[in-house]
């Protein structure tokens, strides 16, 4: 479902060019569970952002579900993002003035879903994350683990094909981190493709497929039996 061919991403910093991605070829099938590791600055986030259509390659092609994404208009790109991709970040990025349920509802609102359709979807997502008690709390009234669960509920409420998580446990202690990983794995078990960027080899080792990056290149691609 994700096909990258010779993808480059070059940043212009002053009069210097930074090759964040340097010819990445990568294919990820539907429902795969992939971890992405590598030293800091190796291009993991950049790759994830391009897969998530938040960024465009400087060169190369990216096909999502067989469709070339480089020619999409802004509206079409937003549509594709809304329908296919869920994002989870290290710093949660919840909207502080909205309650947990309202945060989860946001993607549905942006997609223009009717309020009657939204309510059951939000309830299911909140329920799946075990947040029933916290649905009407503001982010500042939630713990770190709860916040990340709200963020995951929000990323999955549209039932996207891919969940992209950029160091989802980076801001959590080990126990809550483990909880979050289990939740993500449960989503994978339910059929969602998952790509997790992590610095933690233990977490990275749990995935069926481990990618390692170095200086903008994919240097290792290991598959293991689940």
């Amino acid at each position, binding site marked *: 479902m994700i096909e990258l061919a010779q993808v480059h991403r070059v940043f212009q910093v002053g009069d210097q060019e930074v090759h964040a991605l340097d010819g990445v070829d990568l294919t990820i099938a539907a429902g795969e569970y992939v971890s992405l590791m590598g030293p800091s600055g190796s291009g993991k986030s950049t790759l994830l952002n391009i897969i998530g259509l938040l960024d465009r390659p400087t060169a190369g092609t990216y096909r999502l579900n067989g469709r070339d994404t480089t020619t999409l208009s802004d509206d079409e790109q937003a549509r594709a*993002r809304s329908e296919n991709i869920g994002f989870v970040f290290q710093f949660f990025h919840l909207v502080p003035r909205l309650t947990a349920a309202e945060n989860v509802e946001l993607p549905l609102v942006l997609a223009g879903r009717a309020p009657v359709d939204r309510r059951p979807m939000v309830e299911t997502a909140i329920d799946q994350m075990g947040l029933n008690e916290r649905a009407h709390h503001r982010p500042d009234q939630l713990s770190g683990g709860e916040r990340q669960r709200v963020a995951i509920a929000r990323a999955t409420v549209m039932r996207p094909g891919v969940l992209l998580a950029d160091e989802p446990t980076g801001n959590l202690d080990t126990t809550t981190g483990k909880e979050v990983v289990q939740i993500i794995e449960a989503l994978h078990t339910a059929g969602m493709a998952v790509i997790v960027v992590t610095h933690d080899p233990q977490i990275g080792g749990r995935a069926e497929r481990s990618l390692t990056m170095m200086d903008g290149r994919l240097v290792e691609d290991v598959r293991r039996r689940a």
Partner: protein
Amino acid sequence: MRVRDVVRLSWGTLIRTRLRTVMLLLATAIGVAAVVMLTSLGEAARRYVTAEFSSLGTNLIIVLPGRSETSGSGLTLLAGQTPRDLTVRDAIALERISAIDKVAPVVLGAASVQWGGLEREVPVFGSTASFLEIRNWSMERGQFLPPGDPERPSSVAVLGMKLKAELFGDTPAIGEWIRIGDRRFRVIGLLATEGRTIGIDVQDVAIIPVASAQQLFNTESLFRIITSTHSREDMERARDEIRRVITERHQGEEDITAVTQDAVLATFDRIFGALTLALAGIAAISLAVAGILIMNVMLVAVSQRTAEIGLLKALGAARRQIMTLFLAEAIMLSFIGAMAGLLVGQGGSWMIGRLYPVLPLGPPAWAPIAAVAIAVTSGVVFGILPARRAAALDPVEALAGR
């Protein structure tokens, strides 16, 4: 995105940033209130003056010494020309015009009026019996000036009620002898009318026969001649006739101005209309200022909410939607501000109306509509720049907080 959701989301932001919201609402509200109140004052002045003029009487043609541009307002005197005086004989000549009903020559001056050791400096009108009817005035007591030869002086006087009260108090005044300037007059009547004419308080005047006034002020010339026609249809013809008769009497020179009440009214209407517009314009500037304020604050909001904007994009928002959200905020701010301003403006007008009951206050119908329209337009116009900036943000950088 649904309109209801856009409004709900924007509303949520406005509520959360309460201080900011209140300040912006205030700025817009003050602008709109200023438009409403200032135009309402201008309009009140217009209505007041119009009403005053209408109360002068109907079908009037006022003859003034001096030629003027008759094309425009009929009030601008041509500079550099010393006109021939208007005289009582001119007035008598006008009485012979068939279209004209009544003629009242008027002399105006100021003199001290004395009685029983009390003295008061007031405007003194010299005129004839016709003056009362032409002016639509009425008597409280006694008689007005008796009819008769306007060229013969006579020692009778009519007083306004205030002048009477100041000099006589509760003592009956009719039949008493008073002194006006250096002459003695017998009080024969008291005016009932209240109000002002050409800026003079009608209750604080003395009226004496025109010939007596000419002696008193040692002048042959009249302040003006007021004439009335039988009907409204006669106005044009009467005015032409007046010009012809006076020109004939003044050795072929048309050195007078005949002003119809309509022309005066139209002039004042135009002057005050322009005044109201000017006031509205000044007030509208404050609306533009409010718009710029909204733009500034929205720009700050964009930089404060960068991460949130990036997030919305990650959640599937297109540029267009981000723009809509920020524009909606600016428009809601200016619209609510405008509504608050309308309330304040109407309230302010009402209060001024209570303080100065003579002013017929109330903004012209276009003013509140225009004020709200300008406020909301400025919200849109000045909201576009911040909204575009928000929409153009790179989501990756926005999320990274770079």
